[in-house]
């Protein structure tokens, strides 16, 4: 591949950071680039990466941070990208000029596994040996010069959290960029090396990189293997199988590689590392004991999750109110200033409320993100997965699905985005399809309007429980049960192909760094705004257009025209017969249709429909009064208890969220799953509402 045209300046260089998870890799990345970075997506795949700039002597270095991985055996989407970056196979991301391999010095053995795999890719490399400041307390001593000598590349002890050694690392990187030298052949798996050489020489004119051939040969049915099989065809597969069986004699090549590599590492470590009895840190030990105590630890876990859940709602609500007030005021000001007319209506009802409906989500999303980032940076997120694994297994998922599910109670979009860490694609798919069932914050305004207006606030069971609260609880449970059953269905469909995959490192607890939390928060907020914000905004504007056109031929004062003549009104009347069995009139239908792209729009839509409709009396009564008094053409009340309960069930089960649909599309990389999910949830919502309304009405008649 020729990337010469993309390098505009002579001294522009691409450097990538790679390393195990929990090595402080992103802290190091932030240390090197500061705020000169952005979170992007690798084209074509969902994996996010941070990209930053760094001026080093005569070089303009573009630093690419690939997701943490334990091995180049690519399994999760995050790991596949790491391999692709190392072979220059990612579109728009040229082959790196150098690699910074980040190693946790307190965990040298396992970290050297990936390190030596990366060295085999042949890209000039520098090792950043991180967390060397923790070595004395752990009783570990490492002989740096000998380790450097064995690996054959510069090895720089650093502490990403304090900044020690960073200038040395930069100097070593400059040296490597000035005089790139090929990595020494470590001869870790000589037999495998021979087989790969044979394969490479046979397909020399197919431009296969040696690292791609290596991974394809070693990782049977892995991504690289599948790619090469389809690219090189039968001659390749035949030779590969022959070499594999000759070399493996029944054992898998991957197991041979792992054993060879670890015996090489064991031999190397004997020369460079000595471990004494650690001088244990009393505070850390006590913390560990408390957090890991079967009873106290579980209690702390439940309290922590409860507190996060509570904070996401309680802390956000004053901010949300403030945003709503601000948007209403701004909307008022603009309509006062612009007067009546199409432009005024577009600015205040389309643009301003569109922007408002996006930023109103930000308080909850940002608070949720802060907590999740803190959970990640402290290492507690692994503890959560460990504690919840047994529970989540009940619905065919693993403990790693727990945090995405919890996030989905605020919003399914970050929840679904959070499934990326899951290596098993069927686990991941089940979690993605279950997430939209969780009662997200966009459902709450609908619930509170309908419950507050129609469910009597009576006490039941001796006054301890409110009927309104019970209804809300029921709706939460309905979402959890719906999601659980969905996950179970997906797991059962794929159960034959599923393997038990819960192999999770439990990192030591670490204090999160404020600047790291802030940089991560900023990155994720931008991604959320890009992915969900643009859709929510477009939908709000689209709903305005559908409700405002075609324009009446009346005078200016009749602007905007009657809802019933608008496109929205016409559409609703046309499809209304479909929804009549749910007890809805065309106005409810219109509001529900308007909220299909974003469910929270239903409140604004109802307000518009009842306030704007010329057949209403036009008095400024609150929305709850208006819907209470709404009647069918025959004079019977529309919002009966069975109809309201049905409508609630509809909102609980239906996938009325374009942003979620778009995120499912992005994360599953196919339209199949978002379409299936949408059809499935919409049918469930319709069926549920139908059942509740019909049975409820029949019961009401019977009594």
């Amino acid at each position, binding site marked *: 591949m020729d990337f010469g045209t993309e390098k505009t300046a002579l001294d522009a260089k691409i450097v990538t950071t790679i390393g195990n998870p929990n090595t402080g890799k992103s802290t190091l990345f932030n240390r090197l680039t500061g705020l000169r970075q952005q979170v992007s997506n690798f084209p074509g795949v969902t994996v996010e990466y941070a990209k930053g700039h760094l001026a080093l002597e005569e070089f303009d270095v573009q630093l690419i941070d690939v997701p943490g991985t334990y091995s180049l055996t690519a399994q999760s989407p995050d790991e596949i990208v790491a391999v692709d970056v190392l072979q220059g196979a990612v579109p728009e991301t040229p082959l790196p000029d150098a690699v910074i391999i980040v190693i946790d010095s307190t965990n040298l053995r*396992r970290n050297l596994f990936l390190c030596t795999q990366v060295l085999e890719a042949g890209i000039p490399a520098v090792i950043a040996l991180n967390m060397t400041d923790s070595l004395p307390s752990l009783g570990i001593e490492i002989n740096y010069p000998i380790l450097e000598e064995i690996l054959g590349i510069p090895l720089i002890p650093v502490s990403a959290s304090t900044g020690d050694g960073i200038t040395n690392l930069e100097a070593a990187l400059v040296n490597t960029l000035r005089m790139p030298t090929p990595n020494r052949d470590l001869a870790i798996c000589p037999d495998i090396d021979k087989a790969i050489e044979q394969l490479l020489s046979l397909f020399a004119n197919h431009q296969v990189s040696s690292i791609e051939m290596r991974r394809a040969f070693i990782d049977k049915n892995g991504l690289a293997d599948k790619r090469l099989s389809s690219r090189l065809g039968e001659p390749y597969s035949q030779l590969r199988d022959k070499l594999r069986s000759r070399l493996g004699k029944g054992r898998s090549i991957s197991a041979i590689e792992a054993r060879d590599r670890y015996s090489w590492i064991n031999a190397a470590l004997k020369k460079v590392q000595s471990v004494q009895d650690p001088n244990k840190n009393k505070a850390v030990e006590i913390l560990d004991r408390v957090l890991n105590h079967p009873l106290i630890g579980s209690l702390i876990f439940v309290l922590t999750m409860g507190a996060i859940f509570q904070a996401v709602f309680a802390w956000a609500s004053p901010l949300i109110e403030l945003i709503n007030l601000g948007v209403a005021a701004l909307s008022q000001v603009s309509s006062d200033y612009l007067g009546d007319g199409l432009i005024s209506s577009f600015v205040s009802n389309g643009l301003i409320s569109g922007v408002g409906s996006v930023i109103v989500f930000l308080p909850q999303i940002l608070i949720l993100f802060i907590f999740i980032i803190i959970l990640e940076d402290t290492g507690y997120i692994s503890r959560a997965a460990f504690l919840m694994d047994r529970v989540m297994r009940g619905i065919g998922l693993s403990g790693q699905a727990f945090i995405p599910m919890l996030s989905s109670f605020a919003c399914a979009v970050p929840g679904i985005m959070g499934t990326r860490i899951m290596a098993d694609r069927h686990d991941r798919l089940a979690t993605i399809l279950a997430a939209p069932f969780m009662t997200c914050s966009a459902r709450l305004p609908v619930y509170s309007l309908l419950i507050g207006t129609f469910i009597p606030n009576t006490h039941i069971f001796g006054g301890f429980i409110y009927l309104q609260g019970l209804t809300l609880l029921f709706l939460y449970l309905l979402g959890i049960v719906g999601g659980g059953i969905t996950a179970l269905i997906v797991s059962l469909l794929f159960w034959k192909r599923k393997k038990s995959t819960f*192999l999770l490192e439990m990192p030591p607890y670490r204090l999160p760094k404020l600047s790291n939390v802030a940089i991560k928060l900023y990155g994720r907020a931008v991604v959320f705004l890009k992915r969900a914000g643009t859709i929510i905004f477009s939908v709000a504007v689209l709903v305005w257009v559908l409700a405002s056109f075609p324009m009446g031929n009346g005078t200016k004062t009749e602007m905007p025209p009657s809802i019933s003549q608008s496109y929205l009104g016409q559409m609703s009347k046309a499809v209304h017969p479909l929804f009549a069995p749910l007890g809805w009139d065309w106005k409810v239908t219109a509001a529900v249709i308007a909220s299909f792209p974003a469910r929270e729009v239903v409140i604004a839509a109802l307000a518009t429909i009842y306030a704007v409709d010329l057949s209403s009396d036009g008095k400024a009564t609150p929305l709850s009064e208006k819907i209470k008094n709404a009647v069918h053409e025959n004079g019977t009340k529309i919002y009966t208890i069975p109809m309201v309960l049905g409508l609630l069930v509809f909102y609980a089960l239906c996938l009325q969220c374009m942003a979620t649909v778009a995120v499912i599309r992005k994360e599953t990389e196919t339209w199949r799953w978002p379409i299936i999910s949408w059809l499935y949830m919409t049918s469930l919502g319709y069926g549920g509402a139908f059942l509740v309304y019909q049975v409820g009405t029949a019961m009401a008649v019977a009594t």
Partner: protein
Amino acid sequence: MNTTLAKMSVGQTGEISGFQESNHSVENLLQMGLTEGSEIEILRLAPSGDPIELRVSGYSLSMRKADAELVIVTI
């Protein structure tokens, strides 16, 4: 004496001596450093007894009992 990782109790230590079968899970375990000859220590169990958390080559790893059953340990 040989046993499996799944049958060990909290606080017990041992040395990995092999695997019950060779499959994809075992490949994963090998890559995470659970090779023959490695010393392991059971750190704790989740409240329901599964998954388990163990110490291997200087770090903590949690896994399900189903996977731990594959690992033969000499204690």
